[in-house]
């Protein structure tokens, strides 16, 4: 451990401002993701349960960088499919459990010879990431047992409209409403979610300041605001480019939301912050930028200011860190790529904002 810590310190020393390229260093980003795909360094072990999510960042990231040819598509597809939880029969679908995807092998257990009930810990966020990878790799969803996912997902929706991520109990908030909406959207089947209830929950999460908190009453947050707006868009409850339409009759306060979102771009460094009076951070260029994109207001962003900020977070080893002084990590790298795609950086695939994945469209080709 001590040796690794030293190596990390050394890397961060080298990451001084002079050496950071002020252009989108695509080749280095590709190298970075290829390296991560091959082996994640041990500090990632505390995120081991979310291995599907880490794979989602690497694979969808490579697609944004238009380098999917470096991926063993069939191998990845089979690996993802192997993490799906399957009910033994139709009756099990109504036993209260969720049959989606496990986040990693450590929460997945094979049935024993006695046929005892297998502990099932499949998770909404892992399921969202699994489907995102499969979709990105062009997997034919008609080959997937998606009925069990959709039917059992119903078990996770709470009385207040929110979703629990696993049936054995965990926190419920807007993140999992978003996952449920994205899953329904990708599988083109909305029977696993009570939209009216979800809508009510989302409305209750809009704060007095226009943004959304993760739960009713909590502080407005860029990530939560994305989950709210992207869910509403996917459920068809708000129109695309809503600003060009009459917003006064909308069930959420759109003008206040717009104002809140735009004010998150800090005049000091051009980056986006996730909350009022907090530091700017790479990922909010996607979370808040994504909200603005869905509202049809991305064009109001100061592109130059944002690009400059993101360049300061770009690592000379590829990827992006959270802030200028931090080492790159997969999460911030991926949302950095998404942010640059939305800024129409040449050579990148465009993304489907509300799903948070590349849409396979390569502008200019």
């Amino acid at each position, binding site marked *: 451990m001590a040796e690794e810590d030293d190596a990390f310190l050394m890397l961060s020393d080298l990451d001084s401002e002079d050496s950071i390229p002020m252009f989108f260093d695509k080749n280095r980003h590709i190298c970075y993701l290829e390296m991560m*795909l091959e082996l994640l360094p041990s500090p990632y072990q505390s995120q081991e349960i979310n291995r599907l999510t880490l794979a989602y960042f690497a694979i969808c990231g490579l697609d944004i960088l238009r380098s999917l040819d470096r991926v063993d598509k069939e191998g990845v597809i089979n690996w993802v499919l192997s993490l799906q939880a399957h009910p033994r029969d139709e009756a099990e679908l109504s036993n209260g459990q969720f049959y989606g995807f496990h986040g990693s092998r450590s929460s997945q257990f094979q049935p024993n010879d006695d046929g005892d009930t297998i502990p099932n810990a499949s998770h909404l966020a892992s399921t969202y990431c699994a489907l995102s990878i499969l979709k990105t790799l062009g997997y034919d969803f008609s080959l997937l047992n998606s009925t069990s996912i959709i039917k059992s997902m119903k078990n996770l929706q709470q009385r207040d409209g929110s979703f629990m991520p696993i049936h054995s109990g*965990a926190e419920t908030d807007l993140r999992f409403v978003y996952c449920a909406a994205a899953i329904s959207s990708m599988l083109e089947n909305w029977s696993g979610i009570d939209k009216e209830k979800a809508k009510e929950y989302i409305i209750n999460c809009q*704060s007095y300041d226009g943004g959304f908190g993760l739960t009713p009453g909590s502080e407005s947050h860029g990530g939560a605001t994305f989950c709210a707006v992207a869910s509403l868009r996917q459920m068809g409850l708000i129109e695309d480019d809503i600003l060009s339409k009459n917003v006064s009759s909308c069930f959420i306060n759109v003008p206040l939301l717009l104002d809140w979102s735009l004010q998150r771009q800090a005049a000091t460094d051009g980056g986006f912050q996730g909350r009022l009076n907090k530091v700017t951070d790479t990922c909010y260029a996607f979370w808040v930028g994504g909200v603005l994109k869905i509202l049809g207001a991305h064009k109001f962003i100061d592109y130059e200011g944002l690009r400059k900020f993101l360049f300061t977070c770009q690592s000379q080893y590829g990827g992006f860190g959270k802030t200028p002084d931090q080492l790159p990590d997969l999460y911030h790298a991926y949302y950095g790529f998404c942010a640059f795609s939305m800024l129409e950086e040449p050579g990148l695939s465009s993304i489907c904002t509300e799903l948070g994945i590349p849409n396979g469209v390569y502008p200019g080709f």
Partner: protein
Amino acid sequence: MDSGEEKRTRIPFKERPDWADVKPVPQDDGPCLVVPIAYTEDFSETMDYFRAIYLADERSPRALQLTAEAIQLNPGNYTVWQFRRVVLEELGVDLHEELKSFDRIAGENTKNYQIWHHRRWLAEKLGADAVTNELEFTKKIFSQDAKNYHAWSHRQWVLQALGGWEDELAYCHQLLEDDIYNNSAWNQRYFVVTRAPLLGGLEAMRESEVNYTVQAIRASPENESPWRYLRGLHKNDTQSLVEDSQVASVILDVLTSKNSHVHALSLLLDLLCHGFEPSEDLKSAVDVLTPQSCSPDLALTKRICSILEFADLMRVKYWNWRKSTIPVQSPTCQNTDRLADLCARMSDL
């Protein structure tokens, strides 16, 4: 560097006599390695033993100890947490003790969802007994990180589910005294004012809260938090916002001071769009700030947008768009502006 010490002195399970009867179950990653992780030896071994115990459904004191070690290394693994709860219940462990022992782990991982979920589960079981402890615990977290989202979420849950509202407004005040820019504290204040059962709700609290907020604005007009809070105090009631003399007066004060005008102008713009009748003083305060390039006959709302285009450069396109859409956005505004435009054209004649 306590944890480093601990790791070095950790005895592997395979060398512990009381674990000799357990056969570890290694992780079966299958043929294709996608984002494999370079696990440390301690990590792999602990998880291998966890798998063995979990599959055997062994609900024993040593299983409980094992889950504690696994959680230290792998705090995000919800299966480990869930199994720990099963064992705790089976063994009838004193949950106060459990809460105490997790104070330390939580202190190291204050941004881990599973730890907070575990705390909530414990507090739920303990009921009203847990209130004081949980409020104190979150206070301790806030003394290190006053904006910790998980801790705020936990605190709000405790208040709503178990009570303890009595001193919450005073606590918000104290946090804002420490840091008037702490938006989490402003949000909590709103939470208390709108939801505390004994305070009587937003309408009953509005006047005193407006006083408090206006003071905070006067002290630091560039602070976005109290401006947003001020609007929040009039949520869903634009009439009361438009008619609140304190609001108009703080806007005038800020506009005529040398401070940042952005938030004051933004609020004034929205007020005007909702039918607010500005005083002569306010109009002349806007006049003073209006750039010379602006036609003096331009409607007040549009002039404010022009000022904001300069004062809030990062959002120049937004304010320009606002300027172009003012008549469309609000019927009241539309009439006022049409009238202003008409007057302007008449004066041209």
